[in-house]
């Protein structure tokens, strides 16, 4: 187990370096630059040249990247030249928002999606078709549009929920929960759809296996067959999908955070990339990459834990 973790982490390091190098080089191609953005209305070519030099922006790209990388390794992501704010704590703050959103959605997707999936696998016919329809609709609704519709209905027309914003858990657990309802509902619509469909397919697959037949024939109760044997076996493919889903949620949160004005990583990504706030963009790219790496690691571990055939390795 420990060796598996270490191996995965070692494999991930070059991955993270390559991805961040790619984003760094891409960003360096952008027109206008950090110095220009900082100067704003007081721009003059001379001031620009001087500020570029002060910020070290006139050094070769690879030197700048190496500089960033070595600092990042020590947990120092630099200071945003636009806002003058330290990038690392800023990202940490915003990460908590994005994680609240994505983890909340993932939990909802697992509870409701798996529930619906099992239900429709066990009771096919009309309910199965209903789950099919739900998952198609959930898949098809663009989340930014759905978000606007939810805001219009629940925050503008029948104002029972806050339309926008975020309340940290530490400040007010109730406020935190309430501020998450609409954005999580938005993201969860498609996530539940995906989970329900995958669970249903996996359950149907498992329930058609020979051992289920044997268990039934030997008198094992239907409850145990579905919830112990069925769900446990179906969990193996479902966990893989859940990993992919979580990575997608991180991307999807960009638009949802924009609509709900949540101070999360997505909003930071949009703002920083359009403002040429290089340290912030790099930090965000790093964190997104790390999320992928960590999720993959967790999926691998869960996969090994669920599937004894893999565990032995």
């Amino acid at each position, binding site marked *: 187990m420990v060796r598996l973790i270490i191996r995965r982490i070692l494999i991930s390091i070059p*991955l*993270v370096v*390559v*991805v961040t190098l*790619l*984003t760094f080089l*891409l960003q360096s*191609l*952008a*027109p206008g630059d950090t110095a220009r953005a900082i100067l704003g209305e007081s721009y003059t070519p001379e001031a620009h040249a001087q500020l570029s030099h002060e910020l070290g922006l006139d050094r070769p790209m690879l030197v700048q990247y190496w500089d960033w990388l070595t600092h990042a390794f020590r947990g120092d992501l630099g200071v945003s030249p636009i806002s003058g704010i330290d990038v690392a704590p800023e990202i940490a703050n915003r990460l908590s928002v994005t994680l609240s959103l994505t983890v909340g959605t993932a939990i909802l997707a697992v509870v409701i999606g798996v529930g619906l999936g099992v239900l429709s696998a066990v009771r*096919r016919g009309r309910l199965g078709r209903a789950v099919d329809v739900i998952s*198609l*609709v959930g*898949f*098809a*609704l*663009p989340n*930014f*549009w759905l978000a606007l519709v939810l*805001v219009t209905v629940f925050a*503008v027309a029948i104002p029972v929920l806050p339309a926008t914003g975020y309340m940290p858990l530490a400040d007010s657990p109730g406020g935190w929960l309430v501020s998450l309802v609409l954005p999580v509902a938005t993201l969860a619509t498609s996530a539940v759809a995906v989970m329900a469909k995958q669970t249903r397919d996996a359950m149907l697959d498992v329930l058609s*296996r*020979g*051992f289920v*037949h*044997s*268990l*039934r*024939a*030997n*008198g*094992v*109760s*239907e409850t*145990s067959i579905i919830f*112990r*044997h069925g769900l446990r*076996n179906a969990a*193996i493919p479902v966990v893989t999908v859940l990993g992919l889903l979580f990575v997608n949620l*991180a*991307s999807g949160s*960009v*638009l949802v955070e*924009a609509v709900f004005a949540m101070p999360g990583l997505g909003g930071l*990504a*949009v703002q920083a*990339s*359009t403002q*040429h706030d290089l340290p912030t963009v790099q930090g*965000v*790219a790093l964190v*997104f*990459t790390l*999320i*992928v*790496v960590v999720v993959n690691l967790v999926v691998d571990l869960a996969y090994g834990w*669920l*599937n*004894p*055939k893999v565990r032995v390795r």
Partner: protein
Amino acid sequence: MAAIAIGYLVVVTVAAVGAGWLAPYDPVSTDLDHVLSGPSAQHLLGTDALGRDLLSRLMYGGQASLAGVAQAVVTMLVIGIPLGLLAGYAGGWADRVVTWIVDVALAVPVIVVLLMVLAVFRNNQTAAMLALGILGAPDLARIVRGSTLAVRNELYISAARLTGLTSVRIMARHVLPRITGPIVVRASLFAGGALLAQSGLSYLGLGVQPPAPTWGGMVADASTVIEQQPWSLIPPGIVLGLAILSFGLIGDAMRDAAADRSSRQVVKASARRSSSGDVVTKTQAPAPVEPESTALLSLRGVGIELATPAGQSTVAENLDLDVQSGEIVGLVGESGCGKSMTGRAVLGLLPEGGRVNAGRIVFEGRDLTTMSPREIRRSRGAGMALVSQDPSDSLDPVFRVGHQLDELVRKYHKGSRKEIRARGLELLRSVSLPDPEAVARRYPHELSGGMAQRVAIAFALAGSPSLLIADEPTTALDVTVQAEILDLLRGLSSTTGMAIMFITHDWGVVADLCDRAYVMYAGHVMESSPVGRMFANPLHPYTAGLLDSTPRRDVRRQLLPSIPGTVPSAGEWPTGCHFHPRCPLATSVCEVTAIPMAEPESNHHTRCIHHTQVRRGGGNGRSGALA
């Protein structure tokens, strides 16, 4: 569904491409006297904050969306297919490099990169969609690689290689056509994602710039005037949602089509419903009323039907069958004769939509056909149990053997965890497993086939059943292991007095193990008798044919005769005797009349009117017909 989806996309495409001719208004022409009008006769979908016609903007907006999707999909295909082919076909370092690229690409935060690309290329949507295609390509490459690996080693590819075709041509001519299915599925799903990304970016105001309309931009416009005109949110959302839905539906349909292709033959065959089967059922003489049997299990006039896509289909009819306590009864026949379904009907485990549509199944004096599912379930395990064909698939792969055994034992025995485990180990010992403790700790995949089958038997014994239904339990095993399992079953039967219904197509097993045997063909019992008598003197030409096609130790180097033709599928049964098309003794009577069961000798039944002519060793009247 898929047709509707394609139709919708065609309509959208036509509307977008032909917007110049079809749209009622110029999409950027403002009409400040009529801003934010709802739907009206002049403006079917209303107008926006600048008085522009929403319908026209939707139509023109499709251009940017569809062009973006096309750019992303084409980029993905152009890069992904060659990469995947290269990795799958060439293997070696190419494979390793491509696999590594795939790993990197999967870790790239797509949305961040898209935002950066838009910053670099000044809101150039084409650049963003190309980037999206590039980021999507490795995933396609992975799929293509997998499919290519599967195809690469097929014979005709090797043949093509031998004829001197270049690798490129082989890939283009022979490999590519075989793997289009997964590619199309992937492309369609990706197109949906690309559309979502394109509209999401245009919603953020990145990409195509106003006043040019985009679907995402229209949603953004609508969001600023929610207070004044909430309606304007609806049309772009619906059009966009349906388009994404359509791509998804098409992808799903393609995948289903690919999955169905393999099983198409079967489905087709069973979909065709024969009317002759019905006729036979109707002309069937009613089952003779017999005195209450004292047998452990007794089937009388049982009919079984299953659900097929084309409707209900009968797989067995008019079955009479008895198993006495402690008796080992064989149920013999070729595949598809209804043996297994008979076993499942007894267990009350017919597939969904299947049911016993006639007759009675009496077990331990109670009629299973009138019992509730709950009562039947209670009778399973304790009353009867199952050992199935494939030991590797008869145990739950994710739980340890001991754990699963505990669950079964706990159903029948109260007691502490320790007592339960002890009883489980006892069961494992009773099936002659050498080290029960070690076996209990193992997972099913860590067991050999023979051990797994012993464990499966131990599972079945957990409830001390009086009847064990063994559905070809030795077919998947080595010959030596087969013999051990048969010995075990025989021993268990004699020590516990458990009856066994042994479903098989192997006469050797029948001879070895069974007291009596039933021969089934196309849903009918053709013959039944004690085993010795059946071997010595079969009274049905089908039995004789089967026996003749079994290798015998005493006659060497002789071509085994076989019965011409194949078993008809359920629903395609012929009229009269179901065996008549393959029967050397068949006469015109056999083709028309349902043949009743006869008992020419005591305890020896046959469904053949020509039973007197039946001889073994190809002596069935028309000699040599079976050679």
